[in-house]
C-alpha cells in the first residue's frame, strides 16, 4: 500500500487525483481546527513509540473531526461518560430523517441524524444496521481497510465522503446516505 502511494506521487498524479474536500486545501497532518481558535501549542499525544520526549507528534485521528482521543482525558470516570444524552436534540424540533441505501441491499432504511452526537456513533449505527464494517478514517485516505465507504448527498447534489466536515455542518447539509461498496468505494481514498 505504501509502495503504490509513492508510485503515484512519482508520477505526480496528485494534481489529477480525485479528492473530496474544498479545492485548494493542502493535506494537513495536524488537526488545527480547535488549535487555531484557542491559539494553543500543538498537542503532544503519547503514542506507541517513545516519542513523547519533546517531539511534536503527528496526531492520529481515529474518529473524523472528533478530538484526538487522549487516554484518560478529560479526567472523568467511565460511568459518567456513558450517560450523556444527545444535546438538545430530543427536546427541540423534529428529527432529521434521511434515507440510507447500501449497495446490494434489497431495500433502503431511514435514520434520524439528530439521535447521534457525532460520527463515531452514526457509523457504528450504520455498521449495526447493515451488518458490515468500515475501515479507519483519516483525513488523507478516507476509510481504509474495508470494502465500504459511507457517502452522502449534500445540498448541491454532490456525493461526499462522510466525516470530512464538522458534524453540525454534516447533519444540516445531508440529504441522503449511501454506503458504497467495492471498487467504487476503494477509489475514494488515495490508497487501497
Amino acid at each position, binding site marked *: 500500500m505504501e509502495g503504490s502511494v509513492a508510485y503515484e506521487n512519482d508520477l505526480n498524479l496528485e494534481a489529477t487525483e480525485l479528492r473530496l474536500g474544498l479545492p485548494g486545501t493542502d493535506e494537513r497532518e495536524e488537526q488545527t*481546527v*480547535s488549535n487555531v481558535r*484557542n*491559539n*494553543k*501549542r500543538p*498537542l*503532544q499525544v*503519547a503514542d*506507541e513509540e*517513545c516519542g*513523547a*520526549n*519533546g517531539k511534536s507528534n503527528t496526531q492520529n485521528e481515529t474518529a473524523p*473531526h*472528533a*478530538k484526538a*482521543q*487522549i*487516554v*484518560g*482525558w*478529560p*479526567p*472523568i*470516570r*467511565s*460511568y*459518567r*461518560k456513558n*450517560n*450523556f*444524552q444527545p*444535546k*438538545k436534540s430530543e*427536546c427541540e424540533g423534529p428529527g432529521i430523517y434521511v434515507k440510507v441505501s447500501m449497495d446490494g441491499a434489497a431495500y433502503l432504511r431511514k435514520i434520524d441524524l439528530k439521535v447521534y*452526537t*457525532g460520527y463515531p456513533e452514526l457509523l457504528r449505527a450504520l455498521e449495526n444496521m447493515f451488518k458490515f464494517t468500515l475501515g479507519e478514517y483519516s483525513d488523507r485516505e478516507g476509510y481504509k481497510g474495508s470494502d465500504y465507504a459511507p457517502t452522502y448527498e449534500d445540498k448541491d447534489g454532490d456525493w461526499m465522503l462522510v466525516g470530512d466536515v*464538522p458534524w*453540525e455542518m454534516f447533519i444540516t447539509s445531508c440529504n441522503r446516505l449511501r454506503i458504497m461498496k467495492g471498487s467504487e468505494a476503494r477509489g475514494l481514498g488515495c490508497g487501497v
Partner: protein
Amino acid sequence: MQKKMAYSFPDEVLEHVFSFIQSDKDRNAVSMVCKSWYDIERWCRRKIFVGNCYAVNPRIVIRRFPEVRSIELKGKPHFADFNLVPDGWGGYVFPWILEMARAYPWLEEIRLKRMVVTDESLELIAKSFKNFKVLVLFSCEGFSTDGLAAIAASCKNLRELDLRDSEVDDLSGHWLSHFPETYTSLVSLNISCLGSDEVSFSALERLVGRCPNLRTLLLNRAVPLDKIANILRRAPQLVEFGTGTYTAELRPDVFSYLAGAFSSCKELRSLSGFWEAVPAYIPAIYSVCSRLTSLNLSFATIQNPDLIKLVSLCPSLQRLLVLDYIEDSGLEALASSCKDLQELRVFPSDPFGVEPNVSLTEQGLVAISWGCPKLESVLYFCRQMSNAALVTIAQNRPNLTRFRLCIIDPKTVDYLTHEPLDVGFGAIVEHCKDLRRLSLSGLLTDRVFDYIGTYAKKLEMLSVAFAGDSDLGLHHVLSGCESLRKLEIRDCPFGDKALLANAAKLETMRSLWMSSCSVSFGACKLLGQKMPRLNVEVIDERGHPDSRPESCPVDKLYIYRSVAGPRVDMPPFVWTKDEDSSLRLS
C-alpha cells in the same frame, strides 16, 4: 536515689483513656511515647486505615494489632479511575481477607477503595466474620452479584452495604432475595452502580419494608420511576435517597402519588440518581427541597430553566453535584440562593465535543466565589479560564481546601491575555492557606510550580497534567510542599534529575505517579537501589524497558513507600530494579 516513677497507672486505666482517642494520627502519636504505651495501644486499637495496601502486608498488621474490628484499605493509584492503570495491575484483597479470617474472627467492618474483590473474597467474608456489619466497596471490581448473595445470606448483623461506583458483574437481580425474611438490621444500602435491567422489585420492597432503621437507600437505574413511590412509602424515615431512572410519560396519577410519597419523608436531606430526568417529574420533589443539604444531579439531563428553578428552591444546600447544563446563569442563581454551599462539582455534559455545547465559563465559578462564603471544595470542568478569574476566586474564598479545575482542552491559555495560567493558580495557593488538594489544568510553566512550592504548605494531594517546562517544576514541588502525600503527574516534561535529587522526599509521601513523562529506566533502577524502603515500579506494556534505547522514557512509573518490601503479585508488565522474574505471578 529517687526511684523512677514508672507509669503507675494500671494498663486498664491507660486503655480506657486511649479508647477516647479515635483518630489514626493521634493513636500513632500515642504509640510513640514509650514502649509500654506502644504495647497497650496496639492491643486496644480497633480501627486501621491502610492508604496503600502494598505499603504493608496483612501479617505485619495482624502482628502489631491483634484486636482490630474495622479495616480500610486502598489499592490502585487514583489515575486508575481514568483508565491509566492496565487491568491486572494488582490491588487484590483476597490475601488480606484470608489472613484476617484467621486472625480477626470479630471483624465488623471492611472498607475498600480501588481494589480487586472476587466472589471468593466475598464468600470468605460472609463465612468468617460472625458479627460482620459494614461492607463498603468504593470503585472496586472483580465480583458479581453471586458474591453479594453470599453476603446477604450469611451476614445476619449487616448494617451497611455500599457498592458505590464499583463495577459489578450483574448476573441477576435475585441476590437481594438472599437476605432472609428475618433480617431487619439494614441501615444503609447503595446499589446505584448495578447495571442490570433485572431488579427484583418485590424483594427490594419487602427488604425496605422490614428494615425500620434504613436511613440510606441509593437505587440503580433499573428501578423505574413508577416504583419509587411504593418504596418511599415503606421507608418514610429515609435520610438519603437515590432514585433510579427518573423518566416516564407524564401521568397525573403517577405524579401525585410520587409527590405524596416524597412529601411524607420528613427526614430526607439528600437526593441523587435522577438518570435521564425529565422536567415533568422534577416538581415531585419540591416538597423536600427546602430541607435538602445534598443534591446530586450529575446524571440528570434536565437543563435551564428547570434546573435553575430546582436549585433555587434548595436554600439549605451544602453539597451540589451537577452537569454543566446549569450554565453560568444557573450558578449565579445558586450563588444567591444557597448561602450554605460548601461543595460544588460541575461535570461536563459533552466532554469530547469540539465546540462548547453550553454557556458555562469561568464566570459561573467566579459568581459562586462571591456568593457562597462557606465554599471549600470545588471540582469544575469548563472550557475557558483567565488568571483574573482565578485571582478573584482566590481572594474571595481563602477558605478553599479542595480546588480541582479541569479546563477541557489541555494547555489552554488565559483566554483574555493568552498567557499561561501560572499567576491564577499561584493566587489560589497563596490565598488559600489551608488548601489540601489541588488539580491543575491549562497552559502552565515551571513558574506555577514555584508558587506551589513556596505557598502550598498544607497541600497533601496534587494532580498535574500537560504542564511545566523542565525538571525544575517537579523540583519546586518536591522540595517545597511540606505536607505532600500524593503526587500524580501525567504528560509533563519531568525527568530523572528532579526525581533523584528529591529521593528522600519520596519516603515521606504515600506515593508518586508519573506517566508519559521523561524518566529513564536507569534512573528508576538507581532510585530503587538507593532507597530500599521505596518500591519503584515501572508499568510498561511494551516489553522490558531495557529492550528500548537508554533515552526512551518509561511509560508509567509508580513509586510508593513500603515496609513490606517488593510485592509478590506483580503482573508481567510491571518492572522493578530486580531482574529476578521469580517474583512474578506465574
